[in-house]
């Protein structure tokens, strides 16, 4: 079974925000909520690097660990999803996440924080695949349509890779060999452990 993962190739990212726009458009994400964003390090300094960041669907997800209502679940494909009907909008997941993925719509009365919203790897939610309810709450279920996440498919330089961990790691490896640099993948170790792509972390070893 595929293990879905994201890789952002910082050597290729040109900070065009195409991934952010693709995500917002595909899922009709409300104003103020950004499931994906582009972060630039050393902005304006020669050699600056940009990476596209969203939920990394961690192997040992901290959001899952801290959720008091246990609204998170992991699919067989390794995608971390949540049930908005169970979420109480407490925000613990937001503090726990190292990537700042959980987002909260703030259009409620008196600025009340709404249900958490985050990247679904374009896999929808627990509602029926392709249903209107699923789209309203979680957005489009592209995986069930045989497609990959819109952000990666829309990326103009193909900096953002999404799909089975083995496949995307192979693609990146081929690039690194060709260009001879840019092997470091920011966030990979934090999200999936320090092991090789697709390999589960060794028992008893902190990742």
């Amino acid at each position, binding site marked *: 079974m595929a293990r879905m993962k994201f890789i952002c190739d910082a050597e290729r990212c040109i900070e065009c925000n195409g991934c952010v726009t693709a995500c917002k458009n595909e899922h009709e994400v409300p104003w103020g909520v950004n499931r994906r964003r582009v972060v630039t390090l050393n902005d304006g300094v020669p050699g600056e690097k940009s990476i596209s960041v969203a939920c990394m669907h961690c192997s040992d997800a901290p959001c899952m660990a801290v959720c008091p209502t246990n609204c998170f679940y992991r699919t067989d494909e390794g995608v971390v*999803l949540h049930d908005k009907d169970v979420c109480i909008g407490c925000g613990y997941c937001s503090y726990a996440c190292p990537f700042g993925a959980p987002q909260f719509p703030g259009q409620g009365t008196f600025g009340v924080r709404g249900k958490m919203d985050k990247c679904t790897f374009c896999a929808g939610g*627990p509602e029926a*695949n392709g*249903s209107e309810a699923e789209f309203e709450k979680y957005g489009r279920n592209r995986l069930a349509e*045989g497609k*990959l996440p819109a952000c990666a498919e829309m990326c103009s330089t193909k900096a953002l890779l999404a799909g089975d961990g083995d496949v995307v790691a*192979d693609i990146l490896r081929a690039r690194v060999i060709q260009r001879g640099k840019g092997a470091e993948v920011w966030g990979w170790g934090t999200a999936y452990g320090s092991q090789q792509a697709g390999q589960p972390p060794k028992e008893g070893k902190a990742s």
Partner: protein
Amino acid sequence: MKHTFHSITHRVVRGAGLCAAVVFLVACGEQPQTPTRLSAAKKDASPVVGTPAEAFKQGSWKSGDANAWNQQLRARANYGMSDYQRVNN
């Protein structure tokens, strides 16, 4: 060996005390870290099942065929994201 009433009582009290200590100390033990409680989320259908909106479906994989679905995503990733492979094939 002689067992006086005093020594038997002492042993019984000591045994009972040990049992009580074990029972009470169990509460101080570490809780298992393995998740015992399943997610409270509703059960989600696998993407392999597909979507009723056939018009949006990509590729020729059959709904429910996990292997075909995997192959579809693999081919799509290689074609769409691997420019080296696309150029060379």
